């Protein structure tokens, strides 16, 4: 399909701008002006709209396709959230307004949204306080490990440089720890799918800053050693971090703060139903236990005794500003709407239904694919291995492409890294049993085809706008921008 730059024709315009109603005397000297105009599209509004609507139709989205992408919690995004987020009372609000004198009084509605969402999350997850600032999950991780660093620094324990991370962790965990200046050390997973306690004990000394555990872990299992691991790390002087990417499995049922975690990030675009946006924007608020509250980023939203809301800046031990303002506000707003709608009776139904659906899929598929759940009841996602199919040269990627052929978005593949040929399936609570059955049927057909006609997989997908693309050649012959003759 043509690029948007190739639509329209020279001189055509789609913009409708106010007329110049002041003297048109530019003060910008010629020496500071660019030599030629930026080569942007010259297209009518219709040209542009048609281009993007046709592009959108080349996507699988959650609204059009079942999307059981493991670890990503692709649940339905309620439509009224989009309407709320588009209200001018929120969208037109300049973030610096409350920093002007008397400006706080003019942003009470927005500050209330942030404060009340923060309180709900703290209660729900068992933490003293949340910062709503982190702009994505990995940004939350970075914030969390920076809080751990600040804690050790304040205690004079500057030698604590090692962050322990299980071998099943998301890649963002070690990457975030590295960005915060930590070294990372890998902790193995035991044969039951829990943190290997013997290996953990052997790794604990006074160089350890903390441990980052995902709860439940990326095998989709509830780590039965969580409390013990937190205790052991605490005894060694470290802190325990919870990666909340999989919170959908336990929301309303287990409070991570009660398990001994000191700090946790959550993904509002996963558990709390804000849209994934094709890869963001998300939001990654971070909750902390008492001892980390002093280090939380500024500004913080506080509620005064008269019921009004205000921004606070004076916290001597804060790590500072991790975002320019108060977080991805419109994502926080959607989360608030979601929590208010579900309420105390609805929230536990999320995890119950998510876990039931994953186990249902697991039960129906476990005779067809190798079960990587270590013979255990899984949580919100089930992990299989395509090792059996791989013997016929049908790999996880081939199974993914066969699913695309059938109009289903594939699960996460090749993750976690400790499972060979991993297929990580997360159905979520918003999908119906008939959708699950349709998926199960498709997976069984694929397993059968892998036995009967493995060659067939090489032709998948054939129903999409393009077939399998040569990624190796793409990386070798890099073309990442059309420069219109520039440079």
């Amino acid at each position, binding site marked *: 399909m043509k690029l*948007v730059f190739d639509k329209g024709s020279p001189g055509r315009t789609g913009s409708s701008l106010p007329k110049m109603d002041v003297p048109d005397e530019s003060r910008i000297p010629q020496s500071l002006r*660019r030599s030629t105009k930026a080569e942007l599209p010259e297209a009518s509004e219709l040209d542009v709209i048609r281009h993007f609507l046709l592009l959108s139709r080349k996507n699988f989205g959650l609204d059009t396709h079942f999307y059981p992408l493991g670890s990503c919690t692709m649940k339905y995004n309620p439509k009224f959230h989009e309407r709320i987020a588009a209200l001018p009372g929120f969208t037109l609000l300049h*973030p610096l307004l409350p920093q002007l004198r008397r400006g706080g009084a003019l942003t009470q509605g927005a500050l209330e949204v942030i404060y009340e969402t923060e309180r709900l999350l703290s209660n729900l997850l068992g933490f003293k306080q949340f910062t709503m600032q982190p702009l994505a999950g990995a940004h939350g991780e970075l914030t969390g490990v920076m809080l751990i660093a600040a804690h050790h620094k304040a205690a004079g324990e500057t030698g604590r440089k090692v962050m322990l991370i299980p071998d099943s962790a998301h890649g963002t965990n070690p990457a975030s720890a590295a960005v915060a200046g930590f070294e990372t050390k890998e902790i193995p997973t035991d044969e039951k799918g829990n943190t290997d306690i013997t290996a953990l004990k052997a790794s604990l000394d006074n160089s350890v800053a903390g441990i980052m555990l995902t709860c439940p872990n990326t095998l989709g299992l509830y780590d039965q050693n969580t409390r013990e691991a937190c205790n052991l790390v605490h005894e060694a002087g470290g802190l325990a971090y919870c990666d909340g990417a999989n919170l959908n499995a336990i929301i309303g049922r287990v409070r991570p703060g009660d398990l001994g975690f000191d700090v946790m990030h959550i993904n509002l675009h996963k558990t709390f139903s804000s849209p*994934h946006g*094709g890869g963001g924007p998300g939001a990654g608020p971070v909750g902390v236990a008492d001892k980390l509250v002093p280090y939380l980023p500024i500004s913080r939203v506080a509620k005064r005794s008269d019921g009004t809301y205000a921004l606070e800046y004076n916290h001597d031990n804060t790590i500072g500003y991790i975002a320019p303002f108060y977080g991805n506000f419109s994502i926080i707003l959607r989360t608030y709407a979601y929590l208010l709608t579900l309420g105390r009776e609805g929230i*536990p139904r999320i995890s119950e239904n998510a876990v039931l659906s994953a186990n249902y899929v697991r039960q129906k598929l476990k005779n067809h694919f190798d079960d990587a759940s270590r013979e255990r009841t899984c949580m919100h996602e089930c992990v299989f291995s395509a090792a059996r199919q791989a013997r016929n040269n049908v790999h996880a990627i081939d199974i993914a492409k066969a699913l695309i052929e059938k109009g289903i978005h594939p699960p996460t593949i090749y993750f976690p890294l400790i499972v060979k040929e991993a297929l990580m399936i997360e159905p979520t609570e918003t999908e119906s049993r008939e959708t699950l059955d349709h998926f199960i049927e498709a997976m069984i057909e694929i397993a059968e085809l892998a036995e009967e006609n493995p060659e067939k997989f090489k032709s998948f997908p054939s129903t999409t706008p*393009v077939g399998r693309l040569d990624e190796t050649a793409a990386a070798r012959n890099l073309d990442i921008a059309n420069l219109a003759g520039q440079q």
Partner: protein
Amino acid sequence: MPYIANTDADRAEMLKTVGCGSIEELWKKAGIEEPAPALDEIPPGLSEFEVVSYLFKLASRNATGLVNFLGCGYYDHIIPAAVFEITSRSEFYTAYTPYQPEASQGTLQAIYEYQSAICRLTGMPAANASMYDGGTALFEAMMLAVRATRRRKAVISGSVSPILREMIRCYSSNLKIELKEVSPGDFCSNQKELAAAIDDETACVLMQYPDAFGTIEDLSMLVEQTHSKNALAVCSAYPIALAVLKTPGEMGFDIVTGEGQSLGMPLNFGGPYLGFMAVQRQLLRKMPGRIAGKAFDASGREGFVLTLQAREQHIRRAGATSNICSNENLCALSALAYLSCVGKNGLVEVAELCAAKAAFAREELIKTGKVKAPEDQQFFNEFVVELPSDASEIAGKMIDKGFAAGFPLGRYYKDRKNQLLIAVTEKRTREEIKSFANAMEAVL
């Protein structure tokens, strides 16, 4: 129960399949022994209608009726409705990271087009798929320079937005990075001192364009001086201004970042926004974040994939170029849709309107006789005025008159208590500007 499809009958059948008599039994089998927590502090659920009514009320408690002259890096521009129409397509907004290219050609082509548009605007040859915001993008640019030069000192101009500098200080606090901040001149950077601060340990020099005072200056010479020490020149730029200004690429910068909010994103009380990043070709493989690239299938059909993924955290883990995973993809789509809708000539028109209205506003304020403005300030759409007394007091009084008058610089620069930073966009009319000047005259 909203958003949960299954009925009690479905659940009963499914529980039977998994061999459990109840949900509680399922929890137990999964290894959860703890009692369910009391959720007394969480209010009971509400209907959609009730939540909408409540949030409408909260929205109305925000004073968005002020005539806005507040900018400081985040600007109140016109956004064509078509931009929202495009980003509201749920095929775009309910998808996730395009790891499966055949099922994501819409997102991937849009990223490629976005990267191309950012290159064309900044005058650079390569761009990534987005960072979180202008501040995180500038920090990532600094770290890119640190990796590329294997040096650990960064020189940063005091004319870089104090908001961005606060963020960079915060992120650098645990890293072995020496941050050398160079105080600005009166209303611009101090190029002489910046050049003097660059030594053989310097990885990069961080600049902003237009700067935190709204000033535009040719930075080509400083870029040359930076290069003479084998350091990299980094520029955080305001993308609307780049429609008319000499591009960072033309000035020789190695890395260009910026806050992309002004490209079709509402102010939204602080986010979501968009960090953009563009680099010279030799830095491309060290760049953080996702990158879309062109690829071909077996029958020669053209498509797009995420490329150079070996730089990223899901492959390289602790050795990745950044920890970023989710970025601001839908905001990047907003930027592309905005740039496509206003188009080549429209974007220049927007920029010319901003610049002319800002110049007019400054003249009108000077005419009151109560406001001083630095005579030699070259600016785009934001400028500094010196008020006779504390600017934050006056901004407070202007709120009562219905104006967000600008940003009092004393909040971040202790020696600038009386200075107000005023931004004017194409939204402001002649009448609004005139009454702004009148109101200012009245409160001074």
